[in-house]
């Protein structure tokens, strides 16, 4: 593995390898006084964030540091990006400065892939950095999907054959897209549940089912993943009012009771309590929100391990 751009690039073998590695890293660190592994000593990891983030950035930084990589954080604010430097020049600068891995979050879909393409053309003595997509526009967020899968595997015991509902603003959600590919690759059945205005064009071609009525689907789900309504990406009316959205698609206590006993509630965060998820539900033992964050660190360690620890497989 050289880069991680999309979960569609992962086959079942490599996806399971990443999840197994994450689980073993978690075991290896469990109850330890010294949460530090020497595995990535001397490797330099740069997080390049053009959008705000708490959990993704922090967990990538912790993941790198627990494996002894040198982690440097660059945010658009406070860097030369604010002076007008292009993404391409910033990327070339980081590569020239010696980054082994660039973790990028960018508002434009496809930004991470551009970095990979440019890496091949930048003429450097050393090899181009590995690129990890930490969210590009409304395209993909592969490590989020991996940590969701890790959490589901932990809570449910298995993913194959499970039915998982993804509810809410699918249109603007890179999390939904990454999860649809990954979870179906792992053998799950995915159903997207959203008002028609919040489903992307072409969703019929995705490897999943589509529904519009949350209440009708709940009883058949093993897990329900609530998505945040991404007001910052919305121009125009996607639904009449926040209240009306909540009535149709929020996970309330009443709806929680309609889920099977074993079903798990996931949310990629940040949660807007009262909008897509009721506070009581978010804090209930059925919710795995904080486990998701914890697993996020181990999953990102696994990704960095497989990208950076071994011998280079190819140059380019």
């Amino acid at each position, binding site marked *: *593995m050289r880069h991680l751009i999309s979960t569609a690039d992962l086959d079942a073998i490599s996806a399971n390898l990443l999840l197994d*590695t994450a689980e*073993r890293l978690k*075991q290896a660190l469990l109850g330890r006084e010294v949460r530090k*592994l*020497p595995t990535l000593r001397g490797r330099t990891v740069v997080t390049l964030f053009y959008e705000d983030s708490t959990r993704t950035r922090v967990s990538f930084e912790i993941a790198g540091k627990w494996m002894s990589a040198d982690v440097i954080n660059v945010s658009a604010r406070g860097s030369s990006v604010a002076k007008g430097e292009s993404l391409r020049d910033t990327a070339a600068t980081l590569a020239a400065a010696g980054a082994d891995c660039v973790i990028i979050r960018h508002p434009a879909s496809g930004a991470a892939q551009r970095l990979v393409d440019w890496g091949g053309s930048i003429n450097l003595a050393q090899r181009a950095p590995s690129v990890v997509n930490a969210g590009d526009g409304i395209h993909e967020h592969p490590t989020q999907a991996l940590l969701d899968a890790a959490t589901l595997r932990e809570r449910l015991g298995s993913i194959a054959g499970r039915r998982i509902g993804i509810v809410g603003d699918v249109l603007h959600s890179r999390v939904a897209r990454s999860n649809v590919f990954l979870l179906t690759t792992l053998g799950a059945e995915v159903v997207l549940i959203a008002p028609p205005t919040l489903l992307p064009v072409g969703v019929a071609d995705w490897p999943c089912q589509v529904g519009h009525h949350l209440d009708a689907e709940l009883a058949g789900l093993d897990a329900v993943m609530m998505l945040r309504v991404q007001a910052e990406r919305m121009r125009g009316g996607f639904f009449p009012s926040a209240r009306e959205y909540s009535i149709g698609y929020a996970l309330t206590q009443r709806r929680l009771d309609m889920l099977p006993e074993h079903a798990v509630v996931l949310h990629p965060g940040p949660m807007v309590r009262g909008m897509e998820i009721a506070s009581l539900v978010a804090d209930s033992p059925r919710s795995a929100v904080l486990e998701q964050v914890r697993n996020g660190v181990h999953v990102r360690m696994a990704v960095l*391990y497989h990208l950076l*620890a*071994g*011998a280079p497989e190819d140059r380019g």
Partner: protein
Amino acid sequence: MASSWRARGDQPGVVSTELLSAADVARTIARIAHQIIEKTSFEPSNAADVVLLGLPTRGVPLARRLAAAIAEFTGGAPGVGILDATLYRDDLRRRPARSLEPTALPDGGVDDRLVVLVDDVLFSGRTVRAALDALRDHGRPRAVQLAVLVDRGHRELPIRADYVGKNVPTARAEQIAVLLTEVDGRDAVLLRRPQEADRQGGTGRPGGTG
């Protein structure tokens, strides 16, 4: 993925000699168990003071068998666990990323206990070095000892075993294959040498990773 160096079935172009039969393996394990009891002054009343940590892959069933033998001989069961040292290896960058094996320490960890690392073959000593480093991050044992079924020589580090099942002088091009029922379906120790004996070879690192 480390599949090629784990292949322990019969291979074409390789001559295999059986060094230990299934009965020999059983006897050897019993002998090492007795030596551990003697050398650690094993007390059934304080059995958890001794912890056997198997190094994956075949050190794990070996550690379990040693613990079972010690329990049979003394009536006290020592702690057993698994220590995967892959993340501490010094040759990670020389090959594609390896998959990790599980790690599981007994309840109470390793602090102030006597830890016996258990592996199938002692070769370069690099796996044991990595395991010592890993162990240090898990706690501070009172002492650490090493038990191996076969010592084949060719040490690259100042490491020696406290308990050795069998010393086997080997050429670098030869391979020692320890077969255990839990992993391979039968018990045996084989010496394998390539038919066109390339005794000076040894550029590769066949079998027994250390």
